C-alpha cells in the first residue's frame, strides 16, 4: 500500500470533521472519495498532506508514519496535492508557479525534464509562461494547479475537486489527463463532487457522509449501487 489512513479523527475547534476515517490506496491505482459538500473529503486530503493535524489516528505513506510530519516535508517525500479552489499564485507568472512546484526538488538536473513532462500534458501552459497566473481562465488555472503539483514528480497525487467550475468539455479533458498521468505511473487519490466522472476513472471508491466512510468498493460496483445512484448520480432508483 502506498497510502493507508487508519482511524483518522480531525477536528476544527470543537467540531469533529472526520470520525475514524480509514481507507487505503495501492500503488498505481486511481481511488476516489466521493460525497456531498462538507462530508470531509477535503479535510481527508488536508490531513494526508499535513495542512491540518489529526486529533488521533494515523496516516501511513509506504512504511512511514507521516501523521505528524510537517507539510513541506511530506511534499519532499513524494505526495503532491492540488488543493480545492486550485490556489494558484495569482501574483506570480505561470513559469514562476511551475518553479514553485519544483521548490522541493533536490535534483535540479531533472528540472527541465519535469517542465517537459508538464508541457506534454498541458501544452497550453507553455504558451502562457510569462503571463500572470491570475489572468488565466478557469480551465487553464486548473491545468496550472495540476502542472504545478506534477513539477515535484510526486508518486502519489491528491486531487481536490479538479472539475469544479469547469465546462463539461473541460471536465472531460481534465479527466482524460488524470488517467494519462496515472498511466505514466502516478498513483491518484481523487476527491470529487462529480461522482459520475470520478466513478468512471477510478478503480475503487469510498463514500463519505458527515465525516464517516459509509460505503466502499470497486468503482464499477458503486456505480450500480442504488444508494449511490440516488444520492450522488442523480438517478431515480
Amino acid at each position, binding site marked *: 500500500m502506498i497510502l493507508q489512513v487508519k482511524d483518522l479523527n480531525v477536528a476544527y475547534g470543537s467540531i469533529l470533521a472526520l470520525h475514524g476515517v480509514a481507507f487505503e490506496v495501492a500503488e498505481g491505482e486511481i481511488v476516489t472519495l466521493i460525497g456531498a459538500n462538507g462530508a470531509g473529503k477535503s479535510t481527508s486530503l488536508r490531513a494526508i498532506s499535513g495542512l491540518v493535524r489529526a486529533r488521533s489516528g494515523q496516516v501511513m505513506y509506504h512504511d512511514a508514519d507521516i501523521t505528524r510530519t510537517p*507539510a*513541506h516535508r511530506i511534499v519532499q517525500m513524494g505526495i503532491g496535492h492540488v488543493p480545492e479552489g486550485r490556489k494558484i499564485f495569482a*501574483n506570480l507568472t505561470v513559469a514562476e508557479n511551475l518553479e514553485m512546484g519544483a521548490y522541493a526538488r533536490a535534483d535540479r538536473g531533472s528540472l527541465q525534464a519535469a517542465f517537459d513532462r508538464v508541457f506534454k500534458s498541458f501544452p497550453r501552459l507553455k504558451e502562457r509562461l510569462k503571463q500572470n497566473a491570475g489572468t488565466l481562465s478557469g480551465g487553464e488555472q486548473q491545468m496550472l494547479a495540476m502542472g504545478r503539483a506534477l513539477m515535484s514528480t510526486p508518486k502519489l497525487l491528491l486531487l481536490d475537486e479538479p472539475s469544479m467550475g469547469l465546462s463539461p468539455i473541460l471536465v472531460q479533458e481534465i479527466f482524460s489527463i488524470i488517467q494519462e498521468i496515472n498511466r505514466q505511473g502516478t498513483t491518484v487519490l481523487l476527491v470529487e463532487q462529480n461522482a459520475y466522472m470520478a466513478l468512471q476513472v477510478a478503480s475503487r471508491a469510498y463514500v463519505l457522509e458527515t465525516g464517516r466512510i459509509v460505503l466502499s468498493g470497486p468503482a464499477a460496483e458503486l456505480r450500480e449501487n442504488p444508494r449511490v445512484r440516488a444520492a450522488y448520480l442523480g438517478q431515480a432508483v
Partner: protein
Amino acid sequence: MIEAINQVLNGLQLGLVYALIALGYTMVYGIIRLINFAHGDVFMVGAFIAFISTVNWHLPFYIAVPLSMLICAALGVIIERLAYRPLRYAARIAALISAIGVSLLIEYGGSLKFVFGPNYRVVPQPFSVVQWDLSGISVSNIQVIVLVTVVILLAGLQYLVARTKTGKAMRAVSFDHDAARLMGINVDAIISYTFALGSALAAAGGVLYSVAYPQINPFMGIMPGLKAFTAAVLGGIGSIPGAMLGALIMGQVDVLSAAYISSQLRDAIAFTILILVLLVKPSGLLGKTGPEKV
C-alpha cells in the same frame, strides 16, 4: 526657488530613510498580515549598534553598517520567533498587542543604564562632511551617501524578491500559506527570512538616519517608525513599490510642511494623511483593491 530645491533634496534624503523602514512594515504585513510595531525600535537598535561599534569598539564605519544590519536581522528573527509565532493562529489583535509589548520592551530595555542608557548621545561623524555649492543648491556628501546606499539596498531587495528562489517563495507565501506549504516551502523559514530582511534594512536606515541627524536615544525609533508606517499605508500596505513611493512622499511632506507651514505641525500633517488614506482609499496608492485575502 533655490531654497525650495534645497528643501526638496532634504525631503528626498529623509524619504529614502523612511523607505528603508517602510519596506520592513510592508513585507512583514504582506507575509503574515501583521503590523510589526516593534519595527521602529529595530531601526533604533541599528543606529545604536553602529554607534557602539564605531565609538566603543573602534570599528571602521564600513564594517559597522553591515554588522549592525546582521545583528538587527537576528533580532528581527528572534522577535518573530518569541513574540509572534506562538500567536500565529490566534486572533490578530493578540499579535498586534504583542507587537506593542515588544516595542515598549525594546525602548525601555534599551534605556537601562547597562544597555544603551536613557540619554541622548551625539553620533560622531564617520567622515568629514563636505558641502558642494551648485549655484546656490547645496548638496552634501552625506546626502550622496544616503542616496547611493539606499539605491543599492533597494536594487538588491528588488533582485532578491523578483529573481531568487527564496524571493519567489516569499511572494508565494504572501499569497497563500497553505498553497506554499504544498509546494514544499517551509513557511516558517520564509517568515523568518522576511523578518531578517526587513530588520536589516531598518538597521541600515537607522545608521543613515543617525549620520544625517547625529543624535540618538532609545526612543528615536518611534516617530520615524510611525512616519514609515504611514508611508507604507499611503503606498498600499503589502506592496513593495508602494512602500518606496509612499516613503518618498512622506519625506517631502515632512520637510516641506516644516519649512513652509509650521515645524510644530509637521507630525500632525503627516498623520492627517494617514487618517485620510484610511478613510478615503485604505488600499493605498499602489495597493491591491478589493477585499483583503486572509
